[in-house]
């Protein structure tokens, strides 16, 4: 291996990146767009569920209950009706997901817990939202009913009772319970996986298409020198992108960052080698630029979004799928990012995913160097 040759290739490749607006666009604009799209677009928080009400009682008590719904951040009262048909229509055409029906004898039944009831009609096309809506509605109604109960007791001169059991919860790592804090570090991984493989997926196929490969193959350059020389400038571009994405995560999306910067950079550099290596491998195997870039998109996008655990928790997946996720490179980087960002994990806590990435990087670069044949047939 000669340093001279690696340097010559790296310089050439850097000049070509600089003079190819398409590569530069991919390299710099794509991460920004993806961070914004995914950072804002992907949220599993359920807030401001639209609610319609049919308040047949319409007095102080019923208004009191509705006010609790209105003031909660989970619900938003969007309409009031006075007949069943209008309520049904509102659910049918999607104006509201939950309809609350308060019976005409709501106040009269209040003192009698066995008989008082409020009806909630729920649009369960999205079962997850429906489940969560039921939970929130139940919580609001129980709080209301506990207050109503103790008020009724105190009116009769009985002092307010403390609840027999109360849950005292302390939320760790993502104190604000913002799904964004959980998701954004994973998005950094997705963006890096996509952009990284795209960057290098063109580098060998471009030489084939422009007819420069034949000349390159006739020179004494070795496959390993070629790979290192070609990946080096893209590694620089990739690290720039990584700084950019991580910066957006911390300063724009205000995800708490608790780990050490050095751990983060080490893990990021490692992941970058993996994704650049995958793009390079595809570029070697597929001799057309379009083909290589399409395949790179396919093999990185789907597994990374579905199986990396960035938004959909891996431990909730069926066993077989969980086993498959161990093959997905971004799974390890997502784990590492979340641990460093939210838990402030050090190298020892994330030793397994780091080791997995080292193995991955070694395997991919070995295969890529092996796959490159210095013949044209």
């Amino acid at each position, binding site marked *: 291996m000669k340093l001279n040759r690696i340097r*010559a290739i790296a*310089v050439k490749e850097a000049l070509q990146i600089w003079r*190819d607006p398409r590569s530069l666009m991919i390299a710099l604009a794509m991460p920004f767009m993806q961070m914004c799209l995914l950072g804002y677009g992907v949220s599993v928080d359920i807030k401001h569920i639209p609610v319609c009400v049919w308040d047949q009682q319409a007095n102080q008590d019923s208004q009191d209950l509705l006010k609790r719904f209105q003031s909660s951040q989970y619900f938003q009262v969007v309409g009031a009706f006075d007949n069943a048909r209008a309520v049904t229509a509102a659910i049918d055409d999607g104006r509201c997901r939950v309809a609350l029906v308060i019976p005409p004898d709501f106040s009269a039944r209040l003192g009698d817990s066995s008989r008082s009831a409020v009806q909630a009609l729920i649009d369960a096309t999205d079962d997850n939202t429906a489940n969560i809506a039921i939970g929130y509605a139940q919580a609001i109604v129980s709080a209301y009913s506990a207050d109503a109960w103790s008020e009724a007791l105190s009116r009769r001169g009985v002092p307010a009772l403390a609840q027999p059991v109360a849950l005292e919860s302390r939320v760790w790592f993502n104190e604000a319970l913002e799904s964004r804090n959980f998701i954004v570090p994973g998005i950094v991984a997705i963006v890096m996986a996509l952009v990284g493989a795209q960057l290098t997926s063109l580098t060998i196929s471009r030489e084939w298409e422009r007819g420069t490969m*034949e*000349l390159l193959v*006739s020179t*004494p350059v070795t496959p390993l020198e070629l790979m290192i020389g070609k990946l080096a400038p893209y590694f620089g571009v990739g690290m720039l992108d990584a700084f950019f994405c991580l910066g957006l995560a911390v300063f724009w999306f205000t995800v708490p960052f608790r780990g050490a910067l050095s751990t983060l950079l080490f893990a990021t550099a490692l992941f970058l080698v993996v994704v650049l290596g995958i793009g390079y491998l595809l570029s070697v195997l597929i001799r057309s630029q379009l083909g290589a870039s399409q395949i790179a998109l396919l093999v990185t996008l789907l597994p990374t979004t579905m199986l990396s655990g960035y938004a959909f928790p891996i431990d909730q997946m069926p066993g077989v799928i969980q086993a498959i996720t161990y093959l997905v490179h971004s799974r390890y980087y997502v784990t590492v990012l979340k641990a460093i960002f939210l838990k402030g994990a050090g190298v020892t806590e994330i030793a397994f995913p780091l080791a997995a990435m080292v193995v991955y990087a070694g395997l991919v670069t070995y295969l890529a160097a092996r796959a490159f044949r210095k013949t044209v*047939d």
Partner: protein
Amino acid sequence: MNDGIIRVEQLVKRFGAFTAVDGVSFDVKRGEIMGFLGPNGAGKSTIIRMLCGLLRPTSGRALVAGIDVARDPERVRGQIGYMSQKFSLYSDLTVIENLRFFGGIYGVKRSELGERIRFATEMAGLAGRETALVSTLAGGWKQRLALGCAILHRPPVLFLDEPTSGVDPVSRRRFWDLIHDMAADGVTILVSTHYMDEAEYANRIALISQGKLIALGSPDHLKHRALGGQLVLVEATRIAEALDTLPSRPGIIDVAPFGNALHVLVDDADRAARELPAWLAGHGIPGARVSRIEPSLEDTFVELVGHRAPVPLVSA
């Protein structure tokens, strides 16, 4: 030990059922310019690519600078310069960037690189245009720059695969001057072309057709000895009848149409020039003019292949 710096023995290359190169053998001496002449698709490029280690031979052996190309292609690559018919420098890089790149991957020492680049730019006539993007250069310049890149590391052997195709005649002439200069310095050059006139600049010519080496020798040898006779031009009014009649006369080896006339291969051109007009008149073709002509390489090619090249050779 043979002094051939390139030795090719029974080289065969098949692509599936198609035999592109069919048992070719030849030697090239140090400092020699060997021309490959043949129509497109004859197998010239395939032979050169095998000699550069770009393609693996199906069978046979090729030695370049004493190294078996199939066994140790990497060592061969340090000994050769290669320039292909498809212009293959980086058009989005400048002249100097291309030269630095190839200097780097050919492993030219940094202390020597400046001097070598200066030599190459001057040779290519590109001094003062070092910062021009290659895509903005005209064909002749690109081609001389490609040659410059291929010789930065002073290779003892140079393979040029149709280096002058698509280049204007003045640039072609200039390019051949460069090739002769390098050969004079002891560089061995194997150059393919489909320009007949160009092939005559080579020391020796290998005629290649349909994957086979059909003749090998100096341009003079090919035009006279390999032809197997002397050539006369027959101009007459009823050319088609003459074409049918002539082969029956003793002393006539072959007859081939040539434009509105005939090229006739005879054992004695002077006798043919004297006797043929009367003989033809006796066969109902009066007023024929017969004159001795210098054979061209194309005549040899046509005679040896038995028919005109499937893709016409260019005699520009």
